[in-house]
């Protein structure tokens, strides 16, 4: 394999992301099923387990997105509660890890720790927690405390929440059926009492982290077991991988103690040409004419409803002084002026319409090809240190993963890149992680050696 040299090959981590509430999910396809019925979640989870995946992944929603002050209506809207679905999925799967996003800002750490420990018991050691942070007052309007947190403090809060959770998971019961006393005193979390869930099969459910900023990466290096990364382009993925793995030594951690798993998409075909055609078809489904305009508005930060999606790009510049037009999701474009200039140049050079341009510059599939090509590419992606595995986001609910499991996974199994059968029982074991959270091993705090 390319960059791997003489090192042993890394096992490829596979995860299945339930299609989310953005335009990656094609609801208008005749095959698209319910985003809410439990049968859809069960289908994807059973498919992933049939493919011997490491885990199933479910994101969380805390406020419906708005654009221009109105609820965003072009993508899938609405989803069920993360933990409730994961607990139900534990009843219809046996080995598959069950991971989900739970926001560290708008959940109480005591409740989070209790629910995750409960899920870990009820699933026999398969619970995972993707810690995200937010501080926006928009989301806060749905909660008792409102938008209470300074933007700059969101990772400090997240770190306190993670450390407090580990403190509770490690609390020692005073006797049979006697809840365990604990106390945690941090700047953002100052709690004490008794924790009524005894040590769960994993002891510490797996912690994933999704932050991409410098403090986000540092938090992951200090506290996370895995990173749900957004970098799927090989060059950027390798740079991210090297950067984050390079931070681990400071915390006394070996490089393979933190797994990096980017979100990825795919399109398969019997021939390379058919796969390319299928990929293009999916992209057109993902970017409807109306979606093209609203995506452009997210860069221009102004109302572009008067523009023709099949016409040229706007000649006005982005409005960088106005408040963000979109609320309820992270900003996707760091420098709107530069992005707009680049897109305009591209569209002019190749005579692209707004819709054609948006199709080209957003969300192209990570892996496109025949099953053999995709198996090669996935394995190479991992062995060349762009990642330790991938989180696959199908574009269709609920059957969007079927082809990958039926046609690509057997090829990956043949070459020994992924397991043929489950040989471990807990998610922590599936991922090849140490038996405890880095927070618990690093008892003296930052910079100390592994115990």
């Amino acid at each position, binding site marked *: 394999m390319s960059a791997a040299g003489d090192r042993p090959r890394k096992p490829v981590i596979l995860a299945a992301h339930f299609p989310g509430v953005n335009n990656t999910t094609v609801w208008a396809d005749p095959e698209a099923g319910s985003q809410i019925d439990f049968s859809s979640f069960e289908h994807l989870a059973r498919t992933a387990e049939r493919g011997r995946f490491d885990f199933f992944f479910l994101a969380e929603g805390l406020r419906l997105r708005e654009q221009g002050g109105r609820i965003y209506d072009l993508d899938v809207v*609405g989803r069920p509660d993360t933990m409730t679905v994961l607990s139900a999925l534990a009843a*219809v799967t046996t080995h598959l890890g069950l991971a989900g996003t739970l926001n560290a800002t708008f959940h109480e750490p005591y409740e989070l720790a209790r629910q995750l420990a409960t899920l870990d018991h009820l699933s026999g050691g398969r619970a995972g927690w993707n810690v995200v942070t937010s501080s926006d007052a928009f989301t806060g309007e749905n909660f*008792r405390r409102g938008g209470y947190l300074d933007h700059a403090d969101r990772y400090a809060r997240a770190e306190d929440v993670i450390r407090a959770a580990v403190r509770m998971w490690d609390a020692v019961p005073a006797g049979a059926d006697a*809840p365990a006393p604990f106390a945690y005193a941090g700047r953002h979390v100052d709690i004490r009492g008794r924790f009524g869930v005894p040590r769960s099969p994993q002891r510490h459910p797996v912690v994933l982290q999704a932050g991409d900023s410098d403090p986000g990466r540092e938090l992951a290096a200090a506290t996370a077991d895995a990173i749900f990364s957004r970098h799927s382009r090989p060059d950027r993925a390798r740079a991210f991988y090297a950067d984050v793995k390079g931070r681990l030594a400071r915390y006394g951690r070996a490089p393979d103690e933190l797994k990096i798993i980017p979100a990825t998409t795919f399109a398969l075909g019997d021939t390379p040409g058919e796969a390319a055609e299928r990929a293009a078809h999916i992209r057109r489904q993902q970017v409807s004419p109306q979606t093209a305009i609203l995506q452009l508005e997210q860069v221009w930060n102004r109302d572009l409803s008067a523009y023709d999606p099949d016409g040229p790009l706007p000649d006005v510049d982005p409005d960088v002084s106005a408040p963000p037009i979109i609320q309820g999701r992270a900003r996707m474009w760091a420098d709107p002026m530069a992005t707009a200039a680049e897109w305009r140049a591209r569209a002019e050079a190749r005579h692209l319409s707004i819709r054609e341009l948006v199709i080209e510059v957003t969300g192209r599939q990570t892996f496109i090809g025949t099953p053999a090509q995709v198996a090669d590419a996935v394995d190479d992606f991992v062995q060349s240190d762009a990642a330790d595995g991938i989180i696959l986001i199908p574009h269709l609910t609920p059957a969007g993963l079927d082809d990958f499991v039926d046609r690509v996974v057997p090829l990956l199994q043949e070459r020994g890149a992924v397991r043929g059968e489950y040989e471990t029982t807990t998610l922590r074991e599936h991922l090849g992680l140490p038996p405890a959270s880095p927070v618990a091993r690093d008892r003296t705090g930052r910079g100390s050696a592994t115990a």
Partner: protein
Amino acid sequence: MLLAAALDGAGHHPAAGRVAGPGADRPFDPFDAGAWARAAVLADRAPLDLVTVEDTFGAARARPDAALVAARVAPLTRRVGLVPVVTTTHTEPFHVASALATLDHISRGRAGWQPRISARAVEADLVGARPAPTAAEAFADAVDGVEAVRRLWDSWEDDAIIKDLATGRFVDRDRLHYVDFAGGTFTVKGPSIVPRPPQGQPVVAVLAHVPPADDLAARGADLVFVTPEPEAGAVRRRADEVRAAEAAAGRAGEPLRVVADLAVVLDATAGGAAARRDRLDEVAGAEWRTDAAVFAGTPGDLADLLAAGPGWGLAGWRLRPAVTEHDLPLVADVVAAALRPGASDAGDGADLTLRSRLGLPRPASRYAGSGP
């Protein structure tokens, strides 16, 4: 007549966690999904109308999160209503509404919610340095919490998802509604993140011993659990108090279903049941006294007692098994069969929602047709 069971891990008797059930070599483990699955499947087979799952915010004893237990058994059952305790004082109404709406989707319309306050100082300490509310404040907050949750359940009209190919719209946002709830201590904007649950409004049930709890039930619940002595006079007096609370609260629409709680120690003979009770008390080191009356006797005698309930003004009974693995099978297989012969036939009631089991109509969203 409604027949329910209150599940609390190994059982309600303080010694339940220290005794094994019949044929078992160790006590019921409340952190073993298989133990819950067996209990839920028993209740489903009977079928009981609903099971509640006990919980508190602060850990009085080792317990798993009740809503997650209910979700864990939902795919394994088809008929029984699933009603977890989810506390109100330190929890977020937005999360509570999402979790229970999701439970309703997963169970195809069998979800309910037993709200409970958390007024102890040790519970406030679990969420940080804040003063514990008084019981009165906690009940007032619970009234607000139930109202906020109910509004969130209505915040999506039933037909909000339109998948309109011509306009590219997944939802009709005019059928999604801000709830703009403003209570005594918190506000919630909405709409919910979860589309309207199958029942429209999952069933809300309150355990009430004190007037503020009666008031909470009268304002926000569909069903109230009460704990009188199981005899005509006491039950009728308690039912009258509930009706008075409804009048005081100005309740309109469906009256509260009044359900009496009864703790049960069952055995094939009356002497056997009394001996079981004595042995449990001996293990616990004290006589079992709880808020509900304790019945020790045969399933047949229990069925006879329960059959009198409707004549006393009760919609039904919720039984609290002393030891889950001993008493629940007798409740589900023997008592339920005696009261409702033939009900356990395969397929019976598999399509019923919990509301329809209770004779409650499916309400339209309060926002239906109100426009944007």
